[in-house]
Every structure is written in C-alpha cells, then in structure tokens.
C-alpha cells in the first residue's frame, strides 16, 4: 500500500501555490527547524537514515558532515537534472509541490550553513522551471527567502538554473561544471564537492526528493521517519514506474516494498495475456532482473544489491514478453554512447563499441563471438573512468547478455528476433 508523505497533496491544485501549501501545513517544519541548532538538524538527518534519492544512495547526513569548517562560503545545489531513463518523479514534485522543495532547501541550507542555493534543472523542463520560479518569487515576497528569514537571522538566496540537454550534468561534479558555465564534464574525486565544489568552494549537492524528504524528517522526527521502510533503507521512496503496466505513474511506497506488489497492486498488473519477462528496477543503468528474480525482490537498497542490481533513482521499467531484449539493449546503449561526455577513453570508445556490437547483432550481421565481446568490452569500462557513466553502460550490457543469452544467440543464428513481431522495420 502507498504511504504518502511527499506525495500526500499532489492531487490538490492549491498545493502548488504558497497559500494552499501553508494551509496544508507548509513551512511549519521550517519554523520548527529554526528553533533547533543546525548541528542537531544534521544529527537528526543522520539518525533518520535518509539516503540520497537521486541514484547513488549515499547517506545524506553523512554527506553534510563532510563540509570543512574553514569559514568559506558554502553552496547548496539541488540536483533537478532528472535524466536517468525511466525517471520522472522529480518533475512531478516540482510541478505539484514546488514549495515542498523550497522548504526542504531552506531547512537544509540552515543545517549546513549555506546562504546561496541553486536548483539545477534540466533544460527540457520548461514548465517545472516556470512553476519553480513563480514559487520562489512567492517565497521571497513572504519573507521565506532572502535576508533574515522569518526573523530567524538566517539569510538564504535561491535561484533556478537550466541545463541544456546533457545527461552527464546529473553527475554532481558535471553539474557543478555546467553551473559554472562550462562543458558539463565531471571532475576527478577527491576532492569531493563538499570540500571543493562550485567555484572551488564547499558545496552540497542533493537530489530533489532528498531535499524534500528533509522537511518530513523535521516534521516527524528521525524516529517518525524511520517508522517507514526497513532498518537500513529508511523512509518512503517515490518510484517512477513505466513500460508495460496498466497504470504507469509515480507511486510512493515505503522502502522494502515488494516489487510484485508495486506491479500488481499499485500499477494494476500487466496487460491481459502478457507475461512478465524482466524488470529494470532503478533506471536504465541498473542491471536487469529476470521475472524469476522479481518474485521475491523488495524495493530497498540492500535487497536489490544482493540481487546484483540497484535501487538507483527508483525508475522501475516493466518489460513483458512482447519485447526483444536485443532491441532494448540497443536502445539503452545508444543512449549511453550519445551521452558520454568524451573525456575518458574507456567510456568514449567503450560506449560506442558496445552500441556498435549490439547494433550489428540487431541488424542480422552479428557473430556468435560478439556476444562474449560485449562482456570483454564492458570489463574494460567499469571502474576505469572519472565518473560512473561508463559503468552505467557496462552494467546493463553485461546483465542483458548474461540473463538473456539465448535471445542473443538466437538473433545471431537466425538473423532475427526470437520474439515474434517485436522488431519489425525498427530504426
């Protein structure tokens, strides 16, 4: 069953505006936060067990704790460059509940001692950008942003910055490069952004959903938040479900929720007559699960890691038996090849080779040894580059080939898909 914290009021149009948001309890947690010591807020976020909701799943409070105490200005950046294929939960939040993100950011800025924040949003999100800008203007007019917020003595300025179509800017150091007006190329870590980020200053980068969740941790306390989810995966999570289900959409469930319940209860199951073939549980870079593996999968960091995959951004792509896995992998690899920023050779070349090899199989000219070549190329990519994009291409490639090898072999032998009707005159 859904448990709605972040998405509780999504269905109320008035929640988008400041008045409606306040009537439904908005900005009360901020007042509560201002009564606390910033360090106590950081401790509370640590105790809550909140982990980054953008993909990497790093504990938020721990990340905040990495900031050096050196008197330099600190920046708080919201990562709204939602680009992992299959993910759309942040867009929905920014459209339906922009103040929830702004409030989460003010609280977080207060906790980490930042006086300037940016929401870095992807270029294609024009509508959410306009909604956010309006909400920020409302917040300034109401004294919720700017100098001496609500008489607390705390100053915080917030602005929105639009990217221009580059998946790599979702990687935090790539995002910082982009915000500095450069190519969005990631930087080698360490130094981590908390030490040297935007303009070389200490910088915290958190995802939209992560920052919004902070508001609910303050409202309900660390224990209140931990009531949802599992011991190690605390709280609720927004899942973007798409693909072959009756009711695709964004669903908020406690972490540890059964994958099959998410499919069958929240999403209304598969189309009549179709059979589940596979699920990508955490965005296109997450290794694929077979239907058999899905049977006992739960949606939390630990269970999915045990199964060799990951929760990622919470983008769940449901694949039924009408899909050809060779075709799907080709689509995924085209994406990573297109989005490689080009600075590391294993990624720039590797993503291209993987796409070429799978395209060759797809067009009927593949050789049996090409299937093993995929694995070999992937071995030269994972863990060998500045950022994780290379891994993000290698991981699905390896998992598709390992788990659906017979489909790849059939395609090579027969020069066509094993799945009837799946690949007709595709491009």
């Amino acid at each position: 069953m859904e448990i709605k914290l972040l998405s509780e009021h999504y269905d109320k149009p008035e929640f988008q505006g400041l008045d409606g948001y306040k009537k439904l309890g908005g900005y009360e947690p901020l007042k509560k936060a201002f009564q606390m010591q910033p360090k106590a807020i950081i401790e509370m976020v640590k105790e809550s067990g909140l982990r980054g909701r953008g993909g990497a799943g790093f504990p938020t409070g721990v990340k905040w704790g990495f900031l050096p105490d050196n008197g330099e200005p600190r920046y708080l950046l919201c990562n709204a460059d939602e680009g992992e294929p299959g993910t759309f939960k942040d867009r929905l939040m920014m459209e339906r509940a922009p103040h929830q993100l702004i409030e989460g950011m003010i609280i977080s800025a207060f906790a980490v001692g930042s006086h300037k924040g940016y929401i870095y949003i992807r270029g294609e999100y024009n509508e959410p950008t306009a909604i956010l800008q309006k909400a920020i203007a409302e917040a300034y007019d109401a004294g919720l942003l700017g100098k001496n917020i609500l008489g607390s003595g705390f100053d915080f300025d917030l602005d929105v910055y639009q990217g221009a179509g580059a998946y790599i800017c979702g990687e935090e150091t790539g995002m910082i490069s982009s915000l500095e007006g450069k190519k969005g190329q990631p930087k080698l870590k360490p130094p981590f952004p908390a030490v040297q980020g935007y303009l070389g200053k200490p910088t915290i980068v958190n995802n939209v959903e992560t920052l919004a969740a902070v508001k609910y941790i303050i409202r309900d306390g660390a224990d209140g938040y931990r009531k949802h989810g599992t011991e190690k995966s605390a709280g609720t999570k927004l899942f973007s479900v798409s693909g072959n289900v009756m009711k695709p959409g964004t669903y908020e469930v406690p972490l540890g929720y059964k994958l099959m319940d998410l499919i069958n209860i929240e999403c209304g199951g598969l189309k009549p007559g179709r059979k589940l073939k596979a699920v990508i549980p955490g965005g296109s870079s997450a290794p694929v699960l077979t239907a058999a593996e899905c049977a006992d999968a739960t949606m939390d960091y630990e269970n999915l890691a045990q199964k060799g995959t990951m929760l990622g951004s919470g983008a769940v792509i449901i694949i039924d038996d009408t899909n050809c896995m060779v075709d799907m992998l080709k689509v995924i690899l085209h994406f990573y090849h297109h989005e490689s920023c080009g600075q590391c050779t294993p990624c720039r070349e590797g993503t291209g080779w993987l796409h070429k090899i799978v395209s060759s199989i797809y067009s009927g000219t593949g050789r049996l040894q090409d299937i093993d070549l995929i694995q070999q190329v992937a071995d030269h990519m994972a863990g060998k580059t500045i950022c994780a994009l290379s891994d993000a291409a290698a991981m699905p490639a390896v998992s598709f080939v390992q788990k659906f090898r017979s489909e790849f072999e059939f395609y090579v032998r027969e020069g066509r898909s094993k799945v009837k009707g799946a690949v007709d005159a595709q491009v």
Partner: protein
Amino acid sequence: MAFSQETIEFIKKECQRYETRRSAILPCLYRAQKEDPNNQVTPEAVAEMATLMELPEVQINEVLHFYTMYNKKPVGKLHVQVCTNISCSMNGGREMAEHLCKEFNVNYEEVSSDGRYTISRVECLGSCDTAPMMQVNDKYHENLTKEEAVKLLKDM
C-alpha cells in the same frame, strides 16, 4: 543580424546574476537561439555574445557544442522532439517519429520545405509514464498515438 535591445539588456543582466559571468553563457545562448529566425545559434551570434559578455568566443563555443539543446543549424518553426528512449520505444515512440517524417515529408534533423517542421529523435524527456510523447518547442505532449501527433502538429 544584431541582437535586439531587449536581448542586449537581458545578456547584461544575466552577466550580473551569478557569481561569475561565465555562468551566464547557458541562459544567454538560449536567448540568442530564441531570437534567431531559424531557431539556431549562429557564429555571428556567438561573436556578439562574446563582445557583450567580455568573454572569449571559445568559452561560448565550448558550451554551444557540448549541449544538445542549442541548435547549430536551422530548425523549423515547430521543433518536434520525439522521445525514443526505452519506455517510449516500448510504447511506439520510434514508429511515431517515423510516421511524422513520412507525413511531413522530411528527414530527421532537417527542415520541411514549408519551413514548419523539424523532427528529431531525442533521449528520455522524463515523461515515461505517458509514453509515447513528444516535445514541441517548449511544451510536452503526452499519451499520443501517431495519428493524434499529426493532428496536433497540423493544428498548431
């Protein structure tokens, strides 16, 4: 073509908005593209931006060529961007893109003879639950069939 007075004002304002002037490059490139009759950023526009922003052209070109949303060649009045990433492909996005090219008699990334349409296939637009979908200029159009997409575009 020189920038309009409003665009010059916009660029000057953006240069003051962020901690460094360089951060203004992305928003100013959008502005230059919007003002261009062919919805693109020309070398002349880059040169004018560089003068106004007091930045080397190479810094602007670096951004222009890295990001996909800046057009380096002419684009039709309606820039139709069809998502062909995974969830959209599973729901007919690729067929929809093909159909639009046939219907408007234009190849991908080119401008139709009447100057109205450019069809592009693009990566995930974050609208996977409403597949297939397309972005036309600034706006998303979701839960489409290929016939509906054609009608929508003809009526614009």
